[in-house]
């Protein structure tokens, strides 16, 4: 590979990967990142609350199921 080929490859590479224009983000992203980090875990969805409530009602309605539950834990 001579110098001419190297220059040709450089030109091709530069043509394939044009320089990024406007590389800066439109606003400062760090405050949003801090807010995300400070936010606690998401609250359980209503479906999970309903499921937990249903389990409590079920155990109260059928106490005989409690030893079976414990057997499988």
């Amino acid at each position, binding site marked *: 590979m001579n110098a001419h080929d190297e220059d040709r490859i450089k030109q091709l590479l530069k043509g394939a990967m044009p320089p990024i224009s406007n590389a800066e983000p439109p606003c400062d992203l760090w405050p949003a990142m801090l807010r995300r980090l400070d936010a606690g875990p998401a609250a*359980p969805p209503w479906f*999970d609350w309903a*499921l*937990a409530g*249903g*389990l409590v009602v*079920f*155990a109260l309605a*059928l106490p*005989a*199921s409690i*030893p*079976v*539950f*414990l*057997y*499988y*834990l």
Partner: protein
Amino acid sequence: MNPHPYLRAFLAGAFVPTLVLPLMLTGFIVARLVLQVPFPIERGIVFPMALVPSLWALWNMLWLGSHARTHLALGIHGALLPLLLMPAGAILATSLGILSLGLSGVTWFHTVYLPYAWIAPVFLAVLAAYYLVWKYVVGFLNRTLGIA
């Protein structure tokens, strides 16, 4: 860097049944030694003590190993475990004499009678309980141990 992720998954998976076991042992000891229940309920400890914690641990390791391919949520993955556990537990309980099958229902520990009509609701309730425990408790442990 996350060394030994499968060991962490094993420990996180075995955590919940290991916590429940002393409570069960206490109940069994009170029933057997204090209340003098005539049935040898210590036979019933074999399944929850020997198999359930190991299966939970292996199930969590399986989730860790397969999550990249399946993208299955941890709660759903945990809710699938009773499909394996309940038949195995019932077969073992029957062979140990803890569970007896009758004409209209089953009897656990010679005292707890459960009609056949209640088997499906109990099964669904166990699935729901597993879903919640795996989603919130095992999920919390996995996050704490850095594997989720």
